[in-house]
């Protein structure tokens, strides 16, 4: 006997025919046509439209002071990176709510890597290391960023609510990262405070905070939904 022969000799008692018949009959009893989820690409495009709409609205309401004071070089670096991360987060969110989807990275790894990339970009672009009113100014930006992450999270949930997350916390992290990036983008358009540590600490904090909050909400929310499904 060799390990390669295991499939033939693994414990393999088949389920009772009566049991499978009962399962099939109960499923057939409540059988209505259902509309399958749209392809991942469609969902990602919809999420990006939401992202763009909320970032535009947020920036229009708060003002474009940040964008107006940024150099063309900084704009050319910061916003494409943010857009790329938003695309990755949208894809991760769509995949996390579809069982059996391809997952190259755990959303938490993606979020950590995304934050590291953004921090590096900020360090390359901004060179004012002074702190100024670090905490009071920082709290204002953090609040504003989180405020715009909330509607993004709500619309993301609306778009993905038909899906089913097998890894609830990971789905929350992916959606939270996506919402947090929307909040961060609004701040980059709006905030004219170009002190490096203000941006690295307070602007960037919107992303992990959103991810952590949504991970908790998704975990407990989906758990309750699963309990309802099984009733």
């Amino acid at each position, binding site marked *: 006997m060799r*390990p390669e022969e295991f499939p033939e000799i693994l*414990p*393999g*008692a088949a389920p009772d025919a009566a049991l499978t018949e009962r*399962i099939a009959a109960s499923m057939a009893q409540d059988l209505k*046509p*259902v509309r*399958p989820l749209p392809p991942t690409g469609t969902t990602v495009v919809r999420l990006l439209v939401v992202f763009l709409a909320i970032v535009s609205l947020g920036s229009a309401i708060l003002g474009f002071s940040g964008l107006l004071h940024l150099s063309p070089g900084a704009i050319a670096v910061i916003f494409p990176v943010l857009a790329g991360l938003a695309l990755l987060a949208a894809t991760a969110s769509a995949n996390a709510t579809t069982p059996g989807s391809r997952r190259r990275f755990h959303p938490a790894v993606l979020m950590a890597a995304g934050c590291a990339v953004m921090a590096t970009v900020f360090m390359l672009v901004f060179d004012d290391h002074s702190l100024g009113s670090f905490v009071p100014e920082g709290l204002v930006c953090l609040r504003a960023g989180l405020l715009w992450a909330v509607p993004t999270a709500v619309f993301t949930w609306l778009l993905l609510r038909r899906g*089913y997350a097998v890894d609830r916390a990971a789905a929350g992290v992916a959606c939270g990262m996506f919402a947090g990036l929307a909040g961060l983008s609004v701040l980059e358009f709006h905030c004219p405070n170009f002190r490096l540590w203000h941006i690295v600490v307070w602007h960037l904090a919107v992303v992990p905070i959103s991810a952590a909050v949504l991970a908790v909400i998704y975990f407990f929310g989906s758990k309750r939904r699963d309990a309802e499904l099984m009733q």
Partner: protein
Amino acid sequence: MQPSADLEQLMVRYQQGDAAAVTELVQRLSPQLHRFFLAQFVSRRYADDLLQETWLRIHQVRHTYRPGEPVLPWLYALARNVRVDHFRRTRRREDRERQMEELPATPAVQPADPHGPDVEAMLRELPESQREVLVMLKVSGMSIEEVARATSSSVGSVKQKAHRAYEKLRRLYEA
């Protein structure tokens, strides 16, 4: 092993409300799902419960299958999810009962089948994640890509787990 295109067509018909497709899916996929649960060394009764719960969940979220995608990773992702939930519920219940009665816990794991007890003993030595990957690859006949999808991990991670499982089994077999 199931021809995947055939299963995909059955899933599409199931989503369209075809009762014959449901019966065929249940008849064809239940044995391998049951074996998947038994290979985690749960009792036969637990495996039956898990099988029923899995089909119930599949039924509730059947719209999340995307036509054109492979069926088995979707199915096994849900089966794993049911197993984890079931395990957590059982553990909580057992903890509560133990606290209340302070009785020694009844062993939850019972040999499911008398065939090849040495294989079972060897499989018991594997960490759960490696055992799961091995069962999906060798019993359910899934590809590495499909196992990666079902377990929400990367292809590299699945290859590594399978390699470690084979190595360990080989060592145990030779010992």
